[in-house]
């Protein structure tokens, strides 16, 4: 099998503009089978937008996006289920596809939430709900999994477990994963390729490459690989509040 056949989605200088304002621009990366690509960056840096570009949500994007698979599992960033809609975990699993009971059970077991199968979605905790979302995404045996901040509402130990789980899923299903995260320490351990965004690509590469990168250290600070740091961007450019980029 050639390398080409392993590519699931390829972004080439992609960007998206809304109301004449760039949400994100000039993004290039590929997600391959069995690999985890992580997008990091501060709030409003265009991480979710980039994921949605990769998913093909937007019409009229700039640049090129090529998708080589239609088997995509997606866990969106913020999902709230309304009390107006009585929905059990099992109904939620079967929302868009007719899956057999075995498949549903297996997916729920693999993320450790099988015991919640008949519970109402509204009664789940944040962490339980994230695991259900993940189970739902993997139940379809996707080739590409897009996870937008999958550890939201999960406490610290739960977070580590969650990333372990994601690594396991990637290995078991041999699927490509596009992961969005704002915490840096996890990025280093569970990722094949890192893209740091702030309206555009600030830096990218393998975790080790990035870790020894001068720009990366400037970006995240010397202690970045050990602790979760609040970082500042000290680049050759600054971002103004209205999203413009000024060269120093």
């Amino acid at each position: 099998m050639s390398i080409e056949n392993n590519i699931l989605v390829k972004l080439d200088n992609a960007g998206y503009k809304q109301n004449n304002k760039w949400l994100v621009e000039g993004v290039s990366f590929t997600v391959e089978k069995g690999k985890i690509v992580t997008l990091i960056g501060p709030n409003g840096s265009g991480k979710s937008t980039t994921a949605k570009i990769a998913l093909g949500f937007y019409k009229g994007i700039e640049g090129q996006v090529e998708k080589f698979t239609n088997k995509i599992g997606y866990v969106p960033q913020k999902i709230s289920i309304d009390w107006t809609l009585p929905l059990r975990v099992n109904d939620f699993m079967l929302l868009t596809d007719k899956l057999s009971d075995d498949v549903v059970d297996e997916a729920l077991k693999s993320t450790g939430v099988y015991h919640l199968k008949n519970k109402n979605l509204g009664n789940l905790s944040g962490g339980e709900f994230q695991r259900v979302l993940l189970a739902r995404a993997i139940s379809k045996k996707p080739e590409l999994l897009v996870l937008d901040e999958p550890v939201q509402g999960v406490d610290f130990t739960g977070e580590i477990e969650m990333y372990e789980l994601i690594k396991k899923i990637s290995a078991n299903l041999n699927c490509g994963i596009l992961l969005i995260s704002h915490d840096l320490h996890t990025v280093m351990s569970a990722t094949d390729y890192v893209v740091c965004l702030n309206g555009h690509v600030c830096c990218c590469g393998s975790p080790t490459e990035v870790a020894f990168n001068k720009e990366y250290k400037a970006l995240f600070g010397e202690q970045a690989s050990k602790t979760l740091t609040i970082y500042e961007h000290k680049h050759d450019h600054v971002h103004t509040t209205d999203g413009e980029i000024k060269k120093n």
Partner: protein
Amino acid sequence: MLDDFFIRALIAGIGIALVTGPLGCFVVWRRLSYFGDTLAHSALLGVTIAYSMEFNIAVSIFLISSLIALILIHLQRKTNLPSDALLGLLAHSSLAVGLVVIGFLTFIRFDIMGLLFGDILAVDKNDLIIIWFGGGLILLVLKFIWKPLFASTVNYELAEAEGLNPDRAKAIFTILLAAIIAISIKLVGVLLITGMLIIPTAMARNISDTPQKMVVFSIIGGLLSVFIGLFSSLEFNTPSGPSIITAALLLFIISLLKIKQTIQLKN
């Protein structure tokens, strides 16, 4: 005792309740109560146009309501006004324009009360055909778009990511809403159609733990409301629409007792 007109009203009511049940669930789930109201208010304009141009009432209402829905979508894109303000603007202005046009049509005698609140005597055989044929069609289309509509009601982005077409489902659903308003106006009236969509569904929510149950209970609630409402309309000579809605309200109040029980059980 059972006059012909009453049988007709009953058959019409059953047909309407079978359709408002499932549609009403989506109105509640998608928070479209006020949207339904706006479409219903615009129906009056449809009626006046039908009368002045000697056009079929149901078709006229359907076209005007769909037009109002299109205008709303356009305004939502083009202006910075919040949706509820736009809905209010369209609801009240189309109601007002409808009433003004009625004022001009002095050559026709209107039963405005009948239009606003429904008239048990107004249902003729043609209406029955429109209600049952149109209603059947609405349910058929709803079955067809159920999956994308329901999935996008739970979460728009999930549905889109998984290859469904939520926007198309939403557009078709809007047309279905316009259609149910068009076919049920004679029995329930302009001002109370949304009540028929929402109140049995609200009752159903109180006693359901799955979406399927909610749809079924919503239909049952609608049917009961129609039966109780129409019999009391006949008995007490009250307008049919308010009688049906009052019956629905009573069922809703009864369903609150069930909630109270569940809460007590939990504690």
